[in-house]
């Protein structure tokens, strides 16, 4: 199945049932656990988040080369660019802002225990996440990036000091949701879920790269105010737009670091042209970060 530079998803049919197998491509540098993702999707279903039904998880990499799990196939569109442009999905685009806000509110109400053995909560998830991505960047970047250094200083000086602790999806955006004409069918790709500030998911949804060329700031779908109001109505708790703005700026820094990580995977020997090309996407994210710092 297309999409997703860091995991593979394979659709297949057995006994008339359409299923999806999700696994790590062998040799990948971004480590995460399929068992944990399997358990999270089960907990999300229990919390009322639309997700595919998960069936079976295999930890033994001897079976298929790497660990994997199997879930139901959910038909629909996942490519962000098409969700924003396909005429057949116009009703979905009208409904998605409220549906995404509702799904986010339900995710943020999930029990933290669903994450398994997570590090203890910290006073400032913002400072902690910034530190995490700075150390990844320091460990892997093959080139100096003055724009990211400016971003790191700017973000550190403005990191929100306190936050409500919640379960955060960590990659909540078009591309990681399945959409039918009526709207949101499933939230997928839970591998980056963690304990954090729920505003992180709202900020990430506003990152320019996830607008796929469309104008409106929230996922290319709507203005920020509409998302925030819908999130509060759905029981997600009060939204401070300045905090979401910080997470949006941080999201650009994080996406730049992820692009560098993907390019590093290529440089480490995984010969994939998409991973290679991501090294040259860093510049557009750096420019957006510089623009956000000017505001």
């Amino acid at each position: 199945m297309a999409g997703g530079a860091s995991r593979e998803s394979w659709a297949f049919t057995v006994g008339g049932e359409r299923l999806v197998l999700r696994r790590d491509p062998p040799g990948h540098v971004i480590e995460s656990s399929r068992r944990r993702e399997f358990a999270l999707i089960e907990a999300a279903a229990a919390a009322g988040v639309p997700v595919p039904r998960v069936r079976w998880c295999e930890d033994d990499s001897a079976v298929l080369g790497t660990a994997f799990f199997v879930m139901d196939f959910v038909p629909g569109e996942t490519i962000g660019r098409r969700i924003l442009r396909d005429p057949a999905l116009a009703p979905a685009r009208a409904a998605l802002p409220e549906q995404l806000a509702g799904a986010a509110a339900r995710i943020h109400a999930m029990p933290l225990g669903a994450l398994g053995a997570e590090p203890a909560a910290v006073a400032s998830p913002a400072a902690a996440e910034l530190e995490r991505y700075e150390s990844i960047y320091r460990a892997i970047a093959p080139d100096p990036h003055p724009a990211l250094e400016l971003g790191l200083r700017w973000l550190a000086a403005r990191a929100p000091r306190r936050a409500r602790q919640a379960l955060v999806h960590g990659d909540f955006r078009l591309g990681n949701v399945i959409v039918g004409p009526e709207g949101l069918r499933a939230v997928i790709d839970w591998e980056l879920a963690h304990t954090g500030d729920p505003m992180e998911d709202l900020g990430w949804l506003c990152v320019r790269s996830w607008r796929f060329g469309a104008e409106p700031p929230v996922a290319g779908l709507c203005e920020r105010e509409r998302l925030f109001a819908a999130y509060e109505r759905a029981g997600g708790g009060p939204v401070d737009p300045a905090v979401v703005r910080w997470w949006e700026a941080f999201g650009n820094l994080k996406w730049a670091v992820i692009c560098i990580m993907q390019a590093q995977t290529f440089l480490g020997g995984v010969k994939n042209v998409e991973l290679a090309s991501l090294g040259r996407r860093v510049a557009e994210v750096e420019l957006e970060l510089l623009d956000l710092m000017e505001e």
Partner: protein
Amino acid sequence: MQDRPTALELLAAVREFLEADVVPALGGRRRFHALVAANVLGIVERELRSEEEALAAEWRRLAALLGDEGPAPAGTAALRAAVRGLTAALADRIRAGEADAGPFAAAVRAHVRWAVVEKLRVAKGG
């Protein structure tokens, strides 16, 4: 001295073949990767077309910003190494807080924006 077509002309021929013949004939993930491959060749074409002038311009700006006296390095490889070294020095000074405020901060921001736009010109064209 190599015969025509030049390296740039050969790259353009392969890119146009990918765009016109390969991409439309493929579907799914392979089509997407063929599109990415064509875009990557476009990046290489733009970089090769202007690399030495771009590096020389970046070196002049960095040397002025960081007060680095001396003649410009000759040749693409020496320029690349010098620009890399000065950019690393700039990154270290930003990290040390020297560009947090004041006139140096403004000059650094202007340079960094210029350098990012220069990277984008190659990465995206236009």
